């Protein structure tokens, strides 16, 4: 199946940087024939198995959650959050202003001084356990809401996002009254008010990664969810209410990036945590320079997934597919660069294309769906622009034939081969279902190429040789190394980057340290 070959004599196409031109970017031969995929009457086609939306009631309008109460934004403005799978508006969301941020910080500061810092740590722990239990109890509701608001497949929100979020609260609950064991020989103290800004790719899970350790350490929180995915954070406000968490301990302020900046730069905010793009992370770090605040950043990535010739190939194919297509590739630690040993490249890529042809793309609410909707129109355009650059720079593009829904923001899974390390698709974070393949011959070359990036969040190693795993794992400049697995997360396992992927860790005892200062 010569589908990755450009027809003889065809010049590299200079495709304009537009998403629309990318879905069918080049000669028809690069798209696999329909008979190899799931389209039409394939025996692999599944009957629809949609999750019911009935468990969820989405209100027409949501306010801010400040000092335990829902408040209208001071400016009276709202933004709309959409369902990316249907492009339908879901709800009106308060557009928080700097004045709202100020009010939330004031509430958090008061709650810290008057209530939360005076509470016995054992009681703090019990609140966190309560929150964890309520998340478990309402997990279906959270999963459905998350999928409607973010576009991720229900299978993932149900099996990954929500259970992990509950597990994070559970894990850190137990730390609340054991902080002295996290910093032996020192006296740990909370910072006070913590300002947190989170992204749209794992809305509830990132909230849990941020809020659980912050509260366990004894801080109070002002959190800004992403503009396109605020719903589960606002649903979490209801969990706080059910848990009878004291007013002001958790405050949720929706709004644009500028509102986030006014939260993190406020002098009463003693510690800042951000997950998102490297450019915004840099802006935040510069914005708070010299203020003496604690800062942790979890930024972008361009992970190499390295497949050695002795790897168990079918497992590696599964791992590579999971690595780049999990959550539509909208994952900071996505395995977006496939480094495959030259001796097996041809066979491996053939198996990979076969597997990609079996991926089910479509309604995120369908329990069979592998790849859901791209989070926003802006993100669709950004992915399309980068894919177009890959074609323009001379890499070979391949996409499986599959029917995409006519409405909603869907991007065909994309495999690039013949990629040079200098190509933008090999250097820049695409944050979409796009895999760039680079080959290597020796272990040393694999390590060199894997580390040849400004990022350093994660990496994957596929080999049956244990000593090679340990050698390569120690040579990779990455904060998380998955060997013969990929995209695994756990509250007990620290997660975070090297180099321009940021600093500080989330998860584990190490994740607690950022929320404590020790004297």
């Amino acid at each position: 199946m010569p589908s990755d070959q450009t027809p003889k004599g065809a010049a590299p196409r200079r495709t304009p940087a537009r998403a629309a031109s990318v879905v069918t970017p080049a000669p028809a031969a690069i798209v696999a024939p329909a008979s190899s995929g799931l389209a039409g009457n394939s025996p692999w086609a599944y009957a629809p198995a949609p999750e019911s939306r009935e468990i969820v009631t989405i209100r027409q309008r949501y306010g801010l959650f400040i000092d335990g109460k829902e408040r209208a934004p001071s400016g009276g403005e709202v933004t709309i959050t959409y369902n990316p799978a249907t492009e339908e508006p879901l709800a009106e969301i308060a557009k928080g202003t700097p004045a709202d941020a100020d009010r939330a910080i004031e509430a958090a500061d008061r709650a810290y001084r008057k209530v939360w810092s005076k509470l016995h740590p054992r009681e703090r722990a019990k609140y966190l356990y309560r929150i964890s239990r309520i998340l478990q109890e309402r997990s279906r509701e959270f999963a459905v809401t998350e999928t409607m608001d973010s576009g991720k497949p229900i299978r993932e929100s149900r099996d990954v996002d929500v259970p992990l979020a509950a597990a994070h609260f559970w894990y850190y609950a137990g730390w609340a009254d054991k902080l002295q064991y996290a910093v032996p020989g020192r006296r740990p103290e909370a910072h006070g008010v913590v300002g947190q800004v989170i992204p749209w790719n794992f809305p509830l899970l990132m909230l849990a990664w941020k809020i659980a350790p912050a509260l366990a350490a004894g801080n109070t929180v002002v959190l800004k969810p992403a503009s396109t995915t605020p719903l589960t954070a606002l649903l979490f406000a209801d969990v706080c209410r059910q848990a009878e968490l004291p007013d002001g301990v958790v405050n949720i302020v929706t709004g644009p990036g500028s509102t986030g900046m006014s939260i993190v730069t406020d002098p009463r905010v003693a510690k800042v945590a951000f997950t998102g793009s490297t450019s915004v992370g840099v802006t935040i770090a510069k914005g708070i320079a010299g203020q003496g605040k604690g800062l942790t950043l979890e930024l972008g990535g361009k992970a190499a997934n390295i497949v050695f010739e002795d790897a168990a190939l079918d497992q590696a194919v599964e791992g590579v597919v999971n690595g780049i297509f999990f959550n539509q590739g909208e994952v900071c630690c996505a395995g977006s660069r496939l480094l495959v040993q030259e001796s097996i490249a041809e066979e491996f890529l053939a198996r990979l294309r076969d597997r990609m042809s079996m991926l089910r793309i479509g309604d995120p609410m369908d329990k069979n769906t592998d790849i859901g909707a791209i989070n926003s129109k802006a993100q669709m355009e950004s992915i399309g622009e980068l894919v177009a650059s890959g074609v323009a720079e001379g890499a070979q593009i391949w996409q499986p034939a599959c029917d995409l829904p006519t409405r909603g923001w869907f991007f065909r899974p994309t495999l690039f081969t013949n990629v040079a390390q200098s190509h933008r698709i090999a250097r820049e974070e695409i944050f979409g279902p796009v895999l760039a393949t680079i080959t290597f011959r020796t272990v040393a070359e694999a390590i060199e190429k894997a580390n040849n990036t400004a990022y350093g969040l994660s990496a994957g190693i596929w080999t049956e040789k244990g000593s090679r795993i340990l050698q390569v794992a120690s040579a990779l400049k990455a904060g998380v190394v998955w060997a013969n697995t990929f995209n695994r997360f756990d509250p007990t396992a620290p997660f975070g980057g090297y180099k321009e992927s940021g600093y500080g860790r989330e998860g584990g005892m190490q994740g607690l340290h950022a929320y404590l200062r020790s004297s």
Partner: protein
Amino acid sequence: MGKKSKRTEKLNLPLTIEPAESSDRLEVRRTAKLYIGGAFPRSESGRSREVQLAKGGVANIAGGSRKDLREAVRVARIAAEPWAARTAMVRGQILYRVAELMEGRAAQFRDDLINHGASKSDAAAEVSAAIDRMVWYAGWPDKLSAVLGGTNPVASSHFVFTLPEPTGVIASIAPEASPLLGLVSRLGGILAGGNVAIVLASESAPLPAVTLAETLAVSDVPAGVVNIITARRAELLPHLVRHADIDGYDLWGCPDELLVEAEQGAAEHVARVARRPHGVKDRADAFDGERGERIDGITAFLEMKTVWHPIGS
């Protein structure tokens, strides 16, 4: 003197050596140079400046330039990987060896401090504390992974461990008011974690840093692992903080008025930053006793790496 003659008798040496302090003898002065890549270059800029000494006279201190800094980063980067690759036990032994050699040069370190205005007793105390501090750090490298890392009991069938690794090339703005103990307390942390260092020495009291460089040069610390630059901090700092091949900054000794610019420069390439804790002043006693024995000096420049592997057949 009696003690001295007794020893020389034992060694059966002729008793003709003049005491060094003899007033009619012209002192052989030391040229205080930079320390880059294991060598002692003058500044490429050709600059030096006079520092008045308490005992009288002056010392000429090399005036490091932006280009000297770039050279230091270049050699530090080369030295970083082999230094990080040494076993933790060996790194500990190398740091202990530094302490041994500092002990041998204790008199000169005391002299340096006295020349910068310290009393005899303060100088003696600072030198002793600095040597002991280096011994304290020498014990750390092979304990860091046990104290800071571990295995993670994940809720799936995987074996998962987390280990600290060095960040890489670290630039240190050494404490100003504690020119030896402060310098050693910050540098020791950077080295114990497996990083390499470029140090901007105390501007008002640079001599102990020069002597430390001369000590390191004959120690087992590989060339390029520590580079010490004497310079005007306000001049070099804007370039230092924007050098994209520096992975982290120890801003403990950064003057308050330069802190915003320093942190903004570091932020541009997502470099790690350690700074003076809130409320702590850059004072001579800032590193005395347990106040100076802080693991933070090590952990600021460590990266935690988490490795996953499935359990199964």
